[in-house]
């Protein structure tokens, strides 16, 4: 299947291309646009990126797999990313990790059957002073306690 960018995305891509002296430089932002538009970076999505930027497939693949924010597999509606680094751990982050695993019945890297939650362990989110911290999609949640985790997850519909 050949994927095509929407008009809207194409306009955005054209805007982005203005910022750089060559097309390849737009690989990162255009991969984000593709991820937003096509859900995750399937092979077809990466090919669409390579084509629009007139760069090689291998280049796009090497880049897409290098960076952790690009999802090569589909993720749930809510991507729960809990920090596993030192400051958060010192503040009890590992308890929260265990709590999340139990609550969502997921191991890291897994998605709930209904496709609602994906659980990941991530590196330092630069929220160390307010750890334990997690990020759900774009939003940061900090100073986590099990009660607070309940509250947050319940609020996500």
């Amino acid at each position, binding site marked *: 299947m050949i994927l095509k960018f929407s008009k809207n995305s194409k306009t955005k891509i054209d805007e982005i291309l203005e*910022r*750089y*002296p*060559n097309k*390849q*430089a*737009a*690989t*990162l*932002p255009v*991969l*984000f646009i593709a991820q937003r538009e096509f859900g995750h970076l399937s092979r077809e999505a990466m090919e669409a990126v390579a084509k629009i*930027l007139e*760069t090689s497939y291998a*280049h796009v693949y*090497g*880049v897409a797999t*290098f*960076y*952790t*924010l*690009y999802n090569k597999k589909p993720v749930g509606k809510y991507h729960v990313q809990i920090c*596993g*680094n*030192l*400051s958060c*751990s*010192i*503040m*009890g982050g*590992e*308890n*929260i990790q265990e709590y999340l695993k139990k609550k969502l019945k997921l191991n890291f890297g897994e998605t709930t059957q209904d496709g609602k939650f994906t659980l990941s362990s*991530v*590196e*330092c*989110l*630069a*929220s*160390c*002073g*307010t*750890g*334990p911290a997690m*990020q759900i999609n*774009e*939003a*940061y*949640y*900090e*100073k*986590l*306690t*099990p009660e607070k985790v309940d509250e947050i997850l319940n609020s996500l519909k």
Partner: protein
Amino acid sequence: METILTPNFNLPDSHTLPVYEKTGGYKTLHKLLKMRPDEVIEEVKKSGLRGRGGAGFGTGLKWSFVPKDPPGPRYLCVNADEGEPGTFKDRALLEKDPHRLIEGSVMCAYAIGAAVGYIYIRGEFDLPYRRIEAALQEAYQKGYLGKNILGSPFSFDLYTHQGAGAYICGEETALLNSIEGKRGEPRIKPPFPAISGLFGAPTVINNVETLSALPYIIEKGAEAYASIGTPKSTGTKLFSVSGPVKKPGVYEVPLGYPLRKFLDEYAGGLMEGKILKAVIPGGSSVPVLTAQEVEEVNLDYESLQEHGSMLGSGGMIVIPDDFCMVHALEILAHFYSHESCGQCSPCREGTAWIYKILKRLEKGQGTPEDLDLLIDISNGMAGQTICVLSDALAMPVKSFLAKFKNEFEEHISLGYCPHRASFRTSGAPTYLSSDQLLWSPRFQSL
């Protein structure tokens, strides 16, 4: 104390242009545009300002390496990739005072003759990204950016470029590759970026905090800045403190401040029931300090170096005595192994090897030879790779083993982790609120 970077942090809507302008923001651009670029560089040199991204390289000196009249373009890259565990000060600047960064960026661009700049902002940052984007728009509208800034012949475009989840892109040449749309692999040097950087053109990469200090330096003059701090470590620095202290957060401190005093006065001391075991003073990659050393050092480049550590990014991690040092090191090893770009054999293999050993050690399955091996592996990594990420793991390994060897030996002789049971069951902490708490990211619902 006079604050240089954070005077506006506690003002409502400090991130907006009107607030920044009301406190004198962007006024200094008029002064800047009347100076010659080499005068600006000279002023920054005289101020003694050193890079706040970790390496502490003289900022003015770095700018002076950029060729004066190269045939092509020159670039400025703003390093807002903050990812070193324990560090969250740039995030505060981006969220609380993005215009100060923009003004500082214009100053740097003017000095080095760059017409285009990119703010490389870590991909996870959402609020900071939206704030800087909004601030850029405001600045363009008011003519602080773009064509003929404030009617002068100087033009400067500043864009954001979002990272996509790779700590290594904070390394300046990996950052360049990432802006060029490539894998974030650090480049082999030479050539250095000042000669051949972004798109092969002369480039300066500066940290958010470094650039945010410029409006003050240009406005008040190099002497005013240099009068703060110590002779070699001038000015103020942001420290982000995390761990079981009463008031974790980001604080602006004149360099040379005693660490112990900082912990007590700014960070409020340790939480009830917690005893200080160690402090990692400058982001997770710098050698750890023992509680004893904490009593002796001052927060400046020289003092920390004398005590075998580094100022680094100013990300201070406080480790209480019930937290296992083997586990702490295991977490760091996991981080550096996960974040190694994997080009260099010693780093790719060494970081993963160290992590595997530590994981085993932490479970109580280590041997005494493992400890020597860890040192050996670290020696094989340090100083022998393209960038210093491999040193960033080698240094903690060596310092942890030098200063807390007893804990490693304990794991080996006991066959299990003596801290695990006691620490991990204790619940999440409660924080004290404090008016001295300069900034602390709240439960964001913006």
